[in-house]
């Protein structure tokens, strides 16, 4: 894992001291709210529906057990005993008091954490594939690239007041588990025909009120030029991005309006001027950073554990969990374990302090001290021996963290919605809970197969509804909660935006509508087809016909 150097320690410690002083001046009346608001937002502190909300950065979703325990401690000491893991791989606390936030930031700094780049019009916390350094299909660990970008972007003076916020995601494998196509910049690590590893760079993706799939601006960027090329893109955006209309200020609008060819021309022109200058990463620095992400001391093991195979045969419940929760690891004899934060009827992404502590303990004993936060609001133990999976599963099950529903109809992304968020038009979590309870029969959920349901409580799309196989968007109709449904969205390497099915459904009709869509899929599917495959084969109409006949 990355460890802070003296510069990181200094930056974070100075920021805590600055914010402590700013909070003191705000509480004493030396500073107005208008003066204070941009300062608190730069430290991840929002004012939400019920109280302040503190968003803590989890760079590329990687946490150590020690950091997890500190997150649990903060939840207990300063909040209401829980935290909420988000689609940005961050954690949010929903109830901190302003007077306590400097102490929280100090506690975070003690474990090399902070709340920088979680708000404001800067380059936000970089996200990455949660299976980084572990996935069997990985070309290179995306955290190396992500950490380089983090160091370059943190407090970057030229890019601290961009036209709008700016989100970067990195995937190190052909399979995209980081939703790179719906980020301002998406980076896919690729291997050229001659074996050289570099970056495919996408630009102009995003969700919100104007969803766009990112376009490839450069099919292969040699690794030494990562920062000059990033800088060139940001400079073009900073110069030409709109500042007159916040709804048209994201880079996706600029790329769309000038076209990818013209945008690329401007970037290449800028790049030509700065390529090879001191903006590049010094030689050897990439290797130094890569050293932080060296593989843990794996044991030499056979590719498949005979004990694991026997345990699956002997215990069907374990076999079901294993089928849902495991992902192939690059190291023989190991597995990637996903921990569902979507118990039936639960709040997607919420974890109690006790659960956070428990996962920290499991990570320490089973996964070389590492935990990952996924953008789908689950947790991952990246490096678990196959022959330890049965024992791990029994512990997870005892803790209530063994729900075998990863990638199924009940593994739902939901933003906080109107239950917590100042922006929301409608509740998201309760809709997720209703669907979860309707499909509580795990056998039925597995029969349905892979199905990504994503729910947002407003057009800002924090719940990623645009890229849900079934997307649900809460809207306000004359003071009542209504929900639009979209079909066919996809956040992976075959990214697509969902299509609106038809008129919105009232609150009480949404779960029935989702079940109707699922039943239509089950009627139409051919051998081996996922929901998305069937939708792509038959299109919107059969689903629409069934849905609105029934209502």
């Amino acid at each position, binding site marked *: 894992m990355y460890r802070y150097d003296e510069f990181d320690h200094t930056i974070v410690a100075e920021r805590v001291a600055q914010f402590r002083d700013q909070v003191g001046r*705000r*509480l*004493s*009346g030396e500073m107005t*709210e208008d003066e204070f*608001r*941009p300062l608190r*937002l730069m430290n991840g502190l*929002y*004012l*939400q*529906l*019920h*109280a*302040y909300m503190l968003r803590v950065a989890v760079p590329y979703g990687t946490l150590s057990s020690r950091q997890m325990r500190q997150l649990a401690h903060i939840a207990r000491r300063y909040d*209401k005993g829980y935290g909420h893991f988000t689609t940005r791989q961050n954690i949010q606390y929903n*109830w*901190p*008091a*302003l*007077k306590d936030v400097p102490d929280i930031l100090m506690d975070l700094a003690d474990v090399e954490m902070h709340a920088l780049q979680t*708000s*404001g*019009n800067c380059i936000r916390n970089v996200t990455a594939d949660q299976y980084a350094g572990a996935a069997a299909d990985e070309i290179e660990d995306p955290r190396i690239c992500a950490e380089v970008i983090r160091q370059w972007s943190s407090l970057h003076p030229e890019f601290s007041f961009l036209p*709008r*916020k700016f989100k970067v995601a990195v995937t190190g494998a052909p399979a995209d588990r980081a939703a790179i196509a719906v980020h301002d910049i998406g980076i896919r690590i690729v291997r050229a025909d001659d074996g050289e590893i570099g970056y495919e760079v996408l630009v102009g993706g995003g969700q919100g009120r104007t969803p766009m799939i990112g376009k490839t601006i450069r099919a292969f960027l040699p690794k030494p030029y990562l920062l000059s090329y990033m800088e060139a893109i940001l400079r073009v955006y900073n110069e030409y991005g709109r500042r007159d209309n*916040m709804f048209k200020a994201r880079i996706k609008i600029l790329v769309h309006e000038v076209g990818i060819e013209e945008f690329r021309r401007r970037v290449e022109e800028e790049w030509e001027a700065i390529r090879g200058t001191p903006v590049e990463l010094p030689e050897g620095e990439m290797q130094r950073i890569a050293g932080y992400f060296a593989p843990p001391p794996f044991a030499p093991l056979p590719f498949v554990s005979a004990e694991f195979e026997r345990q699956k045969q002997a215990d069907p419940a374990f076999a079901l969990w294993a089928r849902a929760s495991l992902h192939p690891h690059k190291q023989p004899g190991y597995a990637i374990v996903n921990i569902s934060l979507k118990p039936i009827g639960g*709040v997607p992404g919420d974890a109690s302090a006790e659960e956070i502590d428990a996962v920290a303990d499991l990570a320490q004993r089973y996964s070389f001290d590492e935990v990952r936060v996924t953008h789908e609001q689950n947790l991952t133990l990246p490096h678990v021996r196959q022959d330890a999976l049965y024992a791990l599963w029994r512990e997870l099950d005892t803790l209530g963290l063994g729900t075998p529903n990863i990638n199924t109809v009940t593994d739902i992304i939901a933003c906080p919605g*109107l*239950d*917590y968020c*100042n*922006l*929301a038009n*409608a*509740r998201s*979590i*309760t809709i997720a*809970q209703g669907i979860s309870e309707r499909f509580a029969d795990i056998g039925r959920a597995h029969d349905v197969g892979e199905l990504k349901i994503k729910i947002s409580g407003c057009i*800002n799309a924090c719940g990623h509804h645009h890229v849900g196989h079934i997307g649900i968007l809460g809207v306000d109709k004359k*003071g*009542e*909660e209504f929900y639009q449904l979209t079909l066919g969205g996809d956040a992976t390497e075959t990214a697509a935006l969902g299509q609106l099915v038809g008129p919105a459904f009232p609150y009480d009709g949404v779960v029935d509508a989702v079940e109707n869509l699922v039943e239509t899929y089950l009627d139409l599917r051919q051998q081996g087809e996922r929901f998305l495959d069937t939708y792509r084969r038959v299109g919107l109409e059969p689903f629409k016909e069934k849905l609105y006949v029934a209502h």
Partner: protein
Amino acid sequence: MSEAESKSSKRASDEGVLALSTARGARGAAMKAVTANRLVDGLVVYLGAEGRWVEDIADAFSVVGKEAGAALLAGTEPDVEACRIVGPYLIDVVAGPDGKLRGTSERERIRALGPTVRLDLGKQAEV
């Protein structure tokens, strides 16, 4: 300023406009109250009688009509300057079947009580 924050402000003003058409009193004018967040801890508060800030919407002081509402809101400026509260705005309120005031919108009902998904949190947990 973040999108969240700026839209929040707009929403508050929108809510004042919405109030005129959705929560009218017996003579056709809407009942209004003022809400805000307490600066030190962010908790939701309401302007009560005699200028006190109270935590329960049932204890909020209400007025009828746009002009009275505007005057009520304007009167909170000293508390903003004194750093007692932040972001005051007008909301529509009605008297419920039990005679107690409550917000007319789903948003204000949730804000007054707490998350509907965690009945153990927020003001609803204190009842």
